[in-house]
């Protein structure tokens, strides 16, 4: 059994596959822009991700492995990414 969670809820060591990029509400210009930026940085549906590091305060920001590159982002941005966790 596998879980689908928001990337913002992931913990260090969690791995999975991105199943959805961008929040469903597309009324805000900010959300539309964020979705495009995430896509440009390699956060695409199907990409393999692993949470590598968490910041000291509030475990924020987070450093991710996205396919074969490393990307840092805040949990706030990670909220618009859904990942399906790999079966442990």
């Amino acid at each position, binding site marked *: 059994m596998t879980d689908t969670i928001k990337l913002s809820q992931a913990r260090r060591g969690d791995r999975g596959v991105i199943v959805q*990029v961008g929040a469903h509400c597309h009324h805000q210009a900010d959300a539309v822009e964020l*979705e495009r*930026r995430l*896509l*440009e940085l390699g956060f695409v549906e199907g990409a393999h991700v692993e949470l590598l*590091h968490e910041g000291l305060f509030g475990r924020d920001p987070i450093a991710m492995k996205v*396919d074969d*590159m490393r990307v*840092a*982002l805040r949990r706030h941005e990670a909220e618009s990414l859904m990942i399906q966790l790999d079966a442990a």
Partner: protein
Amino acid sequence: MDVALKAARVALVGNPNSGKTALFNALTGAHQKVANYAGVTVERKEGLIRAASGRTLSVLDLPGTYSLRARSPDEEVTRDAILGRLAGETPPDVVVCVADATNLRLVLRLILELKAVGRPMVLALNMYDIAQRQGLRIDLEKLGAELGVPIITTVATRKRGIDDLIAAVEQQVDVAALSESQWHSPDAAALRSAAREAERIMKACVRPPERPDTLTGKIDSVLLHPVGGMLILMAILFVMFQAVFSWAAPLMDGIEGGIGWIGEMVAAILPDGLLQSLIVDGVISGVGSVLVFLPQILILFLFIIALEDFGYMARAAFLMDKIMGGAGLHGRAFIPLLSSFACAIPGVMAARVIDSKRDRLTTILVAPLMTCSARIPVYTLIIAAFIPNETVWGFANLQGVVMFGLYAAGIFSALIVSLVIRKIFWRGAVEPFMMELPTYKVPDLKSVGFNLWLRAKIFLTRAGRIILPAVVILWVLATFPYPPENATLPAIDYSFAGMLGRALEPIFAPIGFNWQMVIALIPGMAAREVAVAALGTTYAIADAENATGLLASTLAQHWSLATALSFLAWYIFAPQCVATLGVVRRETNSLKWTWVMIGYMFGLAYLASFVTYHVAVSMGGG
């Protein structure tokens, strides 16, 4: 018959960290010009190459980007240059897309986007040696066919593949035809399908590395450790500050001595009079007062460039993001603010690394609150004069504690001000923080040295352009009109600067400043430390900067403790540096924001001095 080959224009584009600048340096060597694009403040780097065929190629190094859909001013330049929309720029004949061979996925998507622009293109697969070492197999023929562009493998740091690249570019100039640009800003759906296409090409042409880089992961587990990483960052900063202040000291003394010597020589050659005064007191000492900071700025940049090339700066931004974010600043603001401890000018310029316009503006507005090295002469003079050199709490030197307090006050107020800016000017809006954490690489000594030399050149020409006219104007103000025959006071008292000082005195009386101090503040606008020299002049002591000890004892007789503390408080905040204001004006491209900065900084300075003065007087320091 010899037909002169048509000169061609080449533009380099690529993702950040693709080694694009290293390739640019390998292509053009020292033949490069750094300027600004017309109307914007993005650095324009251009170099000329003479190809073996005799053709001249002018190469433009465009800011790194993931997409032509520009977000920062840097990326806008890249987009507009490629599309031929940039005012005063001819569109490139050939686009060279620079890719990190070990990190192709994102650049493949960018290439698909670039192809829509319809300009002839060459793909430079850079860092090809690292790809080979990792056992990464790229089917170059297939990849070239899939993308429809010629591919050249390069190792920019070893100058490998450079001639092949030039040849491939020339071939494109000759054969390839321009087609109409089909590019339009891609929406999410277009980005997704391009990413899928890039993924398909990647799978078809690239076999994953047999020996993938594991070092980056290992280094990160130390440097990004929540606690350990933070401690290491603090240690790096500590070493950096030690270096900036202690290594630079002998060099600075040397430069100071050299400038003094040049001044004396010129004074000996030129006849006494206006010309001598203008050149010695105005130009040489004015420009010299800025030149003195060159060693500190170079040491600071040595650290910054080396850490950047190593790949650490993105990690520092990661570690600091939460702390900076609490004050409404972006993690990336860390680097510009750090630079500002040496001098706000490179700090303000370094704010370019921040994508978002708002975050960049906030950073620029608070950068001058960081205690720059020009404040040090002022601080040390006043501290030496008024703060007893004694031990407090059993271990700390009181003078050192005051110095530390002044630094802390600068940092603390910068955090408060940026928080207020966020609350007042852009309520609620939080810019996303996301960035690639590049693979660690050993910095290339030659390229670090080269970039350092470039920084020095930029600093000197910019400072010269602003400082030189400013010191001439201030010299005029401080020299004319001449004192009367039977003058009893120093000459400056009778000059325009003196009159201005007297006129402004009532404004400064409530914060405990006397008219001599007000006069010193006027030339002190050229640069903060000039105030020390100016105080020396008004108190009629020759060569004040070399005799701070003497000046300090004079000040101790003339000023109350409350006045001295008020003066220190003033210097934490007051924007007493026309060079910084000039750079802010250019970097923000806005007179309004420059005035906002001048206004809030003078406002805070007055308020802080007022409070300091009156508290000190009420406690018996008057």
